[in-house]
């Protein structure tokens, strides 16, 4: 039983991890806490759903396409909105993404009604049994996909020239600008990449989750808690925080009751940051 819960928690945690990684990347590079992150996940879920409903593309297979779409969309949002508030006061930087989130959620409600939508048959359907533990196919596919995308993003940031420039910005913005790095362009790429990660997670989840305008809100909050838990500025921390939250949610939902599972996540955050005010692996001034 505990093995079953642990497996469920780890699978969930991997998906949360991908959402949280995008959030962490955006924060690390431009210091923006993206409260609209969940809304981007939701938009990607709808994109995946419509690709399925109109073109019969399976959500798992359309993930690269949705991620690419979300990359462009994220970069567009950067040029239109985010880039313009970067030099503004702290509260404007904090609230602008709240506004974006409210806008996207209501836009989805306006365009697609608040009704639940669902992908009725994914190619990854069915249940696998490994050593007495039941694993749902779509969730397994989503977790493996999330880890693969996370690894790809990680490779991009660590090994490519653009990725190194992104890292340089998150360490010292001024110095990297003096070294000839085009801040605007790289900020846009980093924002797009963060949104693409959220989008890939959304597309992978579309195969087994109900889709409705508010669906992303909780993912966004959980990812935010995961990033804070891991420590702002630490991508690995975000992944570890997310997996921890997935396990807490699954175990807590079983022990205390499913209604309280998110409350447990928030309480866990409060307890951990009270003991470690910069999260598990955070650094830098705050």
């Amino acid at each position, binding site marked *: 039983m505990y093995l079953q819960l642990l497996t469920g928690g780890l699978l969930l945690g991997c998906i949360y991890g991908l959402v949280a990684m995008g959030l962490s990347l955006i924060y690390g590079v431009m210091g923006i806490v993206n409260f609209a992150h969940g809304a981007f996940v939701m938009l990607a879920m709808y994109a995946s759903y419509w690709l399925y409903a109109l073109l019969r593309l399976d959500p798992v297979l359309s993930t690269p396409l949705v991620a690419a779409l979300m990359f462009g969309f994220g970069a567009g949002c950067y040029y239109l*909105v985010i880039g313009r508030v970067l030099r503004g006061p702290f*509260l404007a930087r904090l*609230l*602008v993404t709240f506004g974006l989130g*409210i*806008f996207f959620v209501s836009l989805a409600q306006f365009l697609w009604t608040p009704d639940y939508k669902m992908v009725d048959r994914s190619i990854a359907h069915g249940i696998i049994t490994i050593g007495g533990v039941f694993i749902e196919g779509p969730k397994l596919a989503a977790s493996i996909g999330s880890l693969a995308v996370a690894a790809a993003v990680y490779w991009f940031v660590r090994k490519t020239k653009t990725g190194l420039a992104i890292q340089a910005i998150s360490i010292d913005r001024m110095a990297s600008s003096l070294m000839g790095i085009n801040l605007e362009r790289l900020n846009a790429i980093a924002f797009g990449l963060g949104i693409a990660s959220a989008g890939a997670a959304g597309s992978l989840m579309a195969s087994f989750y109900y889709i409705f305008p508010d669906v992303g809100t909780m993912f966004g909050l959980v990812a935010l808690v995961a990033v804070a838990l891991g420590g702002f500025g630490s991508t690995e921390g975000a992944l570890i925080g997310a997996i921890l939250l997935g396990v807490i949610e699954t175990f807590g939902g079983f022990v205390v009751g499913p209604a309280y599972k998110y409350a447990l996540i*928030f309480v866990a955050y409060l307890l951990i940051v009270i003991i470690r005010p910069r999260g598990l692996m955070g650094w830098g001034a*705050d």
Partner: protein
Amino acid sequence: MKATGTRNPIVLGVALIAFGIGLPFIFTSRFSQHILIMVLLYALLGEAWNIMTGYAGLVSVGQAAFFGVGAYVSSFAFVTWGVNPWLGMLLSGLVCAAFGVAVGFPVSRLRGRYFAIGTIALGQTIKIIFENWEYVGAARGLMLPLVPEGLLNFQFHTSKAPYYYIALALLAGVVVLMYLIEGSKLGYYFKAIRENEDVAAGMGVDKTVYKLIAIALSAFITGIGGTFLAQYSLYVEPEYVFNHLISVTIALIAVFGGTGNIAGPILGALILVPISELTRAWLGAGGKGIDLMIYGAFIVVICVFEPEGLVGIIRRVGRSARGGEKRGVPVWRNL
């Protein structure tokens, strides 16, 4: 730092109150009076937020926790024990202040965005607890029974005007309190903590104590606002009073008006609340979400084009009129 640059605040205050008393005679329809009441309520909530965030620098995006607890305490006391709502209002304020100190003691250790996310976490947790707490009606909430209308019973059925005057009186009280804080040592301690809490602590300000005082004051006023809303709408439910959007709206109103001064939240509420209520009335029918779409877009536009808020505009106009004074230090540079 007197916000509007008036020479005599008492004259201005009396003039504003006279103006406020006269307003319901101009706007006589129930709907326009409803908007006026909401403006006053949100101005009150914005001032409470201002104490915590604008003065003491503790960024809260979870004020709905205090608001909802305030709404519930008086309503529960009224429904279950028949406690008079006025007494309930005081009780709400005190319970919220105690609650604020209890949760604030550990949480005030956190800084900047860790604190802000902590307040979100707290707001969501309280909401989930109330949604599942059978004793206080769980997700169904509480209906307040109708009693004969009158000031003593805090219920009015024939006209909305009495609610308006009660809200005006509450706001006036809070503004007076804010003036007292602004000119007192307390206000300077808050600002010192906001500007740099380590330096403030080095100068001998007990930062934990003054952070808790700021949180308690803010929670007290927000709790009173919660009771007011409960008496005004005569029902409370978790989805309504603990809604995260309330927390965001409160912060937005104060930011839009301009943080760290008394006039800001009032100006912000005066402009944002009517926009929000009117779009909801005109476009919100049928759950289409257009009203919130406009609201969200509006937040984005403010942050992009007017991040300093209305008070920033007024100051800028004033500065250029006086021929380019030295620019003040940005309040949020440390966060």
